[in-house]
């Protein structure tokens, strides 16, 4: 009997492992593949977005050849309203004027200038504009809305269901509270205590 039990347990473990493996495989099949999903992604092709991408590359200080590649891509894009092509070309010239052997401070200054030019190309000022969102204790109100009072009482089936559940909670709670009540009331405890103290 023991041997058969052991065998059964062994079979059970193997079955469990197989089920777990099957579950993991199923999960793996249904999970979207991050690599393939990324490979399927198509990048933006408009000049403004490509300038943004080049700006991000400069800000992240990626290698110069990558920066050049990014700016070239922006220049190769069809002209777009609001994108200053001359500024992009100027940025490209700045990048090409430096190399990996350029002193660090000079390289840093060039990168900062490139970033500013690329942002200028997209019409972004180097100076951060004052926030138009409310700050401090400003109300932020543009349109004064009227008071909104949801209707009193039961408005629909959902409300009715909630009321039924609420009533069930009240009844159930009262039943449980009574069922779980202590054996003696405070009054009875006081009486018994007085009797003990008086004895």
């Amino acid at each position, binding site marked *: 009997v023991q041997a058969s039990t052991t065998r059964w347990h062994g079979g059970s473990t193997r079955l469990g492992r197989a089920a777990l493996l099957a579950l993991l495989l199923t999960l793996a099949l249904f999970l979207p593949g991050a690599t393939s999903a990324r490979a399927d992604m198509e990048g933006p092709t408009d000049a403004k977005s490509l300038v943004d991408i080049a700006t991000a590359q400069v800000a992240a200080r990626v290698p110069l050849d990558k920066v050049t590649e990014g700016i070239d891509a922006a220049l190769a894009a069809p002209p777009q309203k609001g994108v200053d092509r001359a500024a992009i070309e100027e940025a490209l010239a700045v990048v090409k004027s430096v190399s990996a052997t350029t002193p660090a401070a000079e390289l840093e200054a060039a990168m900062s200038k490139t970033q500013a030019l690329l942002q200028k190309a997209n019409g972004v000022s180097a100076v951060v504009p004052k926030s138009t969102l409310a700050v401090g*204790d400003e109300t932020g109100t543009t349109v004064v809305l009227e008071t909104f*009072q949801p209707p009193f009482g039961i408005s629909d089936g959902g409300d009715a269901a909630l009321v039924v559940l609420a009533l069930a909670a009240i009844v159930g709670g009262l039943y449980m509270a009574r069922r*779980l009540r202590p054996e003696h009331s405070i009054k009875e405890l006081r009486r018994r205590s007085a009797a003990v103290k008086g004895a």
Partner: protein
Amino acid sequence: MVKSSSTAPADVGAVPQPRTPETRGLLGRAMDVVDERMGIKAIQYDVPEHANNLGWSLGGLTATMFFTLLITGIYLAQFFTPMPEVANQSVRYLVNNVWLGGFARGLHYWAAQAMFVLALLHMVRVFLHGSFKRPREGNWLVGSAMLLLTFLAVFTGTVIKWDQEGYEALQHNLDVSNLLGGAGIWFNSSLSERVPLLLRLYTAHVVILPGLILALFFLHALLVKRHKISPHPFVPAAEVESVEPFTNHLKRVGAFGLVLLGVLSLAAVIFPPLIGPTPVAGVEVTRPLWFFWWFFPFEKWFGTVSVAFSIAISFGLVFAVPFLDRNNKRKWRDRKVAMSVLLVVFLIMAAISVNVYIYNKFGH
């Protein structure tokens, strides 16, 4: 005395006792496994019979409301946008378009008031029975701090819905904080000028205040366990009472809590809270939620500074209770001065509140 059987948590290094799985249900065995590692059965400490009555369950009911607020608050936070431009509108969207949004908001609204009232009633019960007296003075202070935090949580909750009433409440708060000078910096926009006060109050409402309440709640509960439930002043002979594990007390609190939850759910459906108009600065046309009424008219009567003083004095009195009522008498009949002070304070607050109800429907 009838002692209940309770299982002590396993000592470190102790030899594990042989278990008999055939005599234990699945849940029981699961509890044993968890207890062996986490010591959860430590909460099965003895509780006297008198503590299983409604009056002695008010603290537990306050905690029930707190957890109700946490759950409904987490749900509401998924749809609320705490930015001045859209906060009010996001509440309207929540009520009109989100599944159970209106119910969740209603329950949150009523549970917040229930929590504050229950905390007050709990403290009154503790006060009347002298349960705060030695050695429980420290726990009274912890409870007082929780009451203050609850008060602030209700206040911030009032403001962040960002309607005219909430905004006017904020303006009163700003008036007071400006009077405090450097001490009031956290409460006004001078600390962080680029961040809306609404966002900072929202952070306080959903993180800082509930976090502090939760931390103090654990301390409060641990101190209750350490000092044990206080004796009933009118049942001095403890041997006439049976004892039960604290878990039974929790069950009864749960039963009462279920009733309360049902009542509040009914209120949430039948009396849903309104949302006022989007706020406009420079006008005063509302009055605050009813439990701020006891100090609301002071600003007009005695100036802004009196509001700060009245709140400080009231909470100061609450904190000072163990230092003022220091004798060893626990029956309320034997503490005439303490009871008189309680009665006078209550009557003053009630009278001012009634005055506001009658005369201040549209602000000062």
